[in-house]
């Protein structure tokens, strides 16, 4: 067992076993958010409950960003009705390998340790 402590790249990545994405769901209307909220943009209420988002989904849109030295795939994934924005990992970033409607699942990877030995863990999605 490693004694390294871990920290998620964003608050909404929950480093359980298995890891999952956690949305804040409006108790009044069911709208889901990933950021810190002041109120619901849909119904203006301010009661939220944390909910686990399904870890498998379908790519409903993507773009291959080629402006830097390392092209990557930005995508929107429909995870059982909750849209998630992500980078698609473990795939050749070319239109031959990424398609609309492609099935993908959540994965995590290490971003490295800071100088106190804390390991940051980020998420992406990978083809199923």
């Amino acid at each position, binding site marked *: 067992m490693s004694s390294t402590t871990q*920290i998620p*790249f*964003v*608050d*909404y990545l929950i480093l359980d076993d298995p890891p999952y994405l956690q949305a804040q769901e409006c108790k009044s209307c069911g*709208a889901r*958010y*990933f*950021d*810190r909220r002041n109120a619901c*943009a*849909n119904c203006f209420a301010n009661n939220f409950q944390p909910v686990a988002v399904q870890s498998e989904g379908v790519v*409903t*849109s*993507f*773009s*291959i*960003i*080629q*402006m*830097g030295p*390392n092209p*990557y795939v*930005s*995508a*929107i994934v429909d995870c059982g009705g909750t*849209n*998630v*924005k*992500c*980078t698609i990992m473990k795939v050749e970033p070319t*239109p031959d390998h990424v398609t*609309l*409607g492609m099935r993908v699942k959540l994965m995590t990877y290490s*971003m490295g340790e*800071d*100088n*106190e030995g*804390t390991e*940051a863990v*980020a*998420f*992406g999605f990978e083809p199923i």
Partner: protein
Amino acid sequence: MGTDAIWIIGSNMTKFGKHPDKDVVDLAAEASRDALQDADISLSEVGVLGVGNLMNASAGIGQQLQKQIGQTGIPVFNVSNACATGATALRVAIMAVKAGETDVGMAVGVEKLAGAGLLGQRGPKPEAETWQPNGRFGALSSTEGRIGTSIMPGVFAQVGMEYGHKYGGASFELFAKISEKNHAHSTLNPLAAYQKRFTLEEIMNDVMIAYPNTRPMCSGNCDGAAAMIVVSDEKMKSMPSEVQSRAVKVSASVLTSDPYEDGCQILPDVNTLTKNAASQAYEQAGVGPEDLDLVELHDCFATAELVHYDNLMLCEEGGAVDFFQSGAPWRDGTKPVNVSGGLQSKGHPIAATGIANIHEIVMHLRGEAGDRQIEGARVGLAHVIGLGSACGIHILEKVA
């Protein structure tokens, strides 16, 4: 509530492109003075000034402009509303005239962007020595690239791809053909930043920026300004007949923001606010999409133009691909779209864009569009959208 008509009696845009010898105020002054001259009216008659500039949003460009062309003490509204900044400045002037606060309003949009690179792109930040959660997502560093993209070419690429996923038929080649059309149109517009016609192959084989948008499929950063003089119905009737005969009626002036839709905080929804603005504008003007002789819509990327055919109801829902393939939006088609060359070739000096697209419509309705004139044009629509989001739609009519 005032129901009297609002009229555009003066309109001007500078050449879009590189103006290394002119600063923002020079460009704004040029467009403003030319618009006043076009309207045959003195600055002393202008009662409100709306000025849009994004890159110096806190610099009071409106008052800086007054210092150069005339300080008359009138209220100045410096506005900033993403790519809809120019349309917002015009909305302010129109609202003031409609409210009866003044008979004459001036709106100016100006930007200097030549060589600015792609907007929204941030340089790499040094990694912290210890991980520190920041912002509303508690992110340890920039999310760009780690959690998809937030930069414009990528976001608008996804907007087009999302439409393709929903309705089908939206291929790389189709998007490139939209760009081919706009670049072909630009060859007739002497004020466009780029007037080069590209073949489909040239467009598809150019540098890929954010698939499926290659470089010529992205709007060009450049310098430019546009200005407009609006007056009340009463004021219009007091103007010389040469001014009246060239006046263009503002039949609708609408500004919307993005209402909540499922998933809209994941991928910005540029559709609903455009549909809402279009519905309101058609209702206000008492015209329908079938009445439009030409449309200038916000083709910040080729992928964006496709979805706005649908949002502006130029085709039936889901029918944008068929609409394009029918040839309708070419300048000799049934519904010419972006005969100015659009943002992809005319250029996109952000805050000037929302007035320049209205200027294009004005020129056609007056019959002053030169080689690119759409013959007999009487009704036109100008659309602009700023991510975040803000949508401005103006419908103009030739009445006289």
